[in-house]
């Protein structure tokens, strides 16, 4: 994860009103929170789609765990599973990817090709057949899941298998949910977009990524989600992640440049077998860059002892105004991070720039 890849991701997700992705081994917790995140943040005009979306997220997610070989030990940073939900215009996408044994591919392919060719009444018929069939295989009647998904989307289920080695492949599937009452006229995004994002997320060791509106209201549910999903790390790491996120996300909601009334931002949590990284990106007015740069360079030039002294002085004297409390937050970040605060400003136009930063711990 670098300040520059944060910008690359932002570009890839530029059209997304909200998007959330998770890579690693899954627990139901992730699912609960991801569905909650979308429930809380889906715009009002899509209210009728909420339940359907939750349903599809759950089906898709359970499909991953059904086909994934779950005997392996859960680790934080494997590439065996990937899950993503995106809202672009008036359409929602639920993308899943998981490792599958190559010898299971023909069976899965056959089921998907079958449901993709059937019309509504044929799907209903097949659904009833599978439902009453007592010989459903021990993996839990995955066929039923596919039928449900395709019935709810009223479309096809794009899928693909990307070979990993001679034993396993990555199985990608995408569900598209359109609001039938609103047609945004946007073309569907292709499955290759999802494959590109998954590959980049894996390459950059990113565990969790969110893009959306970082106004005050949006920060709370996100923190909650991160908190609930970090239960398998130590309390110490858990607290640090939470601490960094609060400071950084609140900074975005307070100081970022609002495009069309939204404090657009992106955040990522990464883990590279040794260290955690948090990265964020948001827009900032060009006129604010110099001050922020000075502040960042100041905190980066100091030792931990100097930063502690500075922080303690501020605690008693409180010379920092409300808008300047960003200073206290940055001092705090700088003294906790194992490295300097890495940052980059990428000029977008004469008014604003993209500001990204990463911290390591």
């Amino acid at each position, binding site marked *: 994860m670098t300040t520059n890849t944060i910008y690359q991701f932002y570009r890839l997700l530029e059209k997304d009103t909200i998007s959330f992705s998770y890579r690693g081994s899954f627990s139901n917790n992730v699912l609960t929170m991801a569905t909650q995140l979308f429930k809380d943040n889906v715009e009002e005009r899509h209210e009728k789609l909420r339940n359907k979306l939750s349903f599809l997220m759950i089906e898709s997610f359970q499909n991953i765990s059904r086909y994934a070989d779950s005997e392996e030990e859960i680790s934080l940073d494997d590439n065996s599973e990937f899950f993503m939900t995106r809202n672009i215009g008036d359409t929602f996408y639920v993308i899943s990817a998981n490792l599958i044994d190559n010898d299971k591919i023909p069976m899965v392919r056959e089921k998907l090709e079958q449901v993709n060719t059937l019309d509504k009444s044929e799907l209903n018929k097949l659904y009833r057949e599978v439902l009453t069939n007592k010989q459903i295989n021990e993996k839990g009647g995955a066929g039923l899941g596919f039928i449900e998904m395709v019935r709810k989307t009223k479309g096809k289920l794009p899928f693909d298998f990307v070979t990993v080695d001679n034993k396993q492949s990555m199985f990608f599937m995408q569900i598209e949910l359109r609001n039938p009452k609103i047609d945004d006229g946007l073309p569907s995004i292709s499955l290759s977009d999802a494959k590109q994002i998954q590959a980049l997320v894996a390459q950059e060791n990113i565990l969790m990524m969110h893009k959306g509106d970082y106004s*005050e209201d949006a920060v*709370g549910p996100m*923190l*909650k989600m991160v908190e609930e999903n970090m239960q398998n790390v*130590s*309390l*110490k790491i858990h*607290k*640090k992640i*939470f*601490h960094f996120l*609060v*400071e950084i996300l*609140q900074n975005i*909601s*307070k100081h970022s440049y609002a495009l069309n009334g939204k404090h657009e931002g992106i955040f990522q949590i990464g883990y590279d077998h040794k260290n955690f990284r948090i990265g964020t990106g948001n827009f900032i007015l060009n006129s604010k860059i110099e001050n922020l740069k000075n502040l960042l360079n100041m905190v980066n030039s100091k030792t931990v002892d100097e930063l*502690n002294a500075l*922080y*303690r002085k*501020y*605690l*008693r004297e*409180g010379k*920092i105004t*409300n808008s300047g*409390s960003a200073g*206290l*937050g940055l*001092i*705090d970040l700088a003294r906790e991070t194992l490295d300097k605060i890495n940052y980059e400003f990428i000029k977008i136009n004469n008014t604003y720039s993209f500001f990204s930063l990463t911290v390591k711990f």
Partner: protein
Amino acid sequence: MSEPINLEKTKNSPEIILDKGASIFKIAGRSIVEDPKDFYTPIYNWIEDYIKAPLKATNFVFDLEYFNSSSARQIMEIIMLLEKIPATGNKVKVDWLYEEGDEMSKERGDEIKLVSKLDFEIKEYPAEDF
């Protein structure tokens, strides 16, 4: 005597009990409010009034699992108000509680103890079982 303050905790703000009659002074939970000044002003005003005629012994408890940097400043303001109590001939003590294993809360307590002029004790309590 000021009416007691009894605020329930929310997802962003701590539980606060300030009750002179019952001798309970406590801030517990998390404080990640975005505008802590607005949130803490009534608390600050209450304590400012209280220190004019404090109890013989005030035991102020902080049990904060988490606070953001702008809340840190407000917590310090409260501590600096409490520092005025000894001049009235009364006693004051701060208990800073943290859950076992929560190094961050302990370190934050150590730091505030370092900059405060109060009788300040840092106490660990056992982690909750899940």
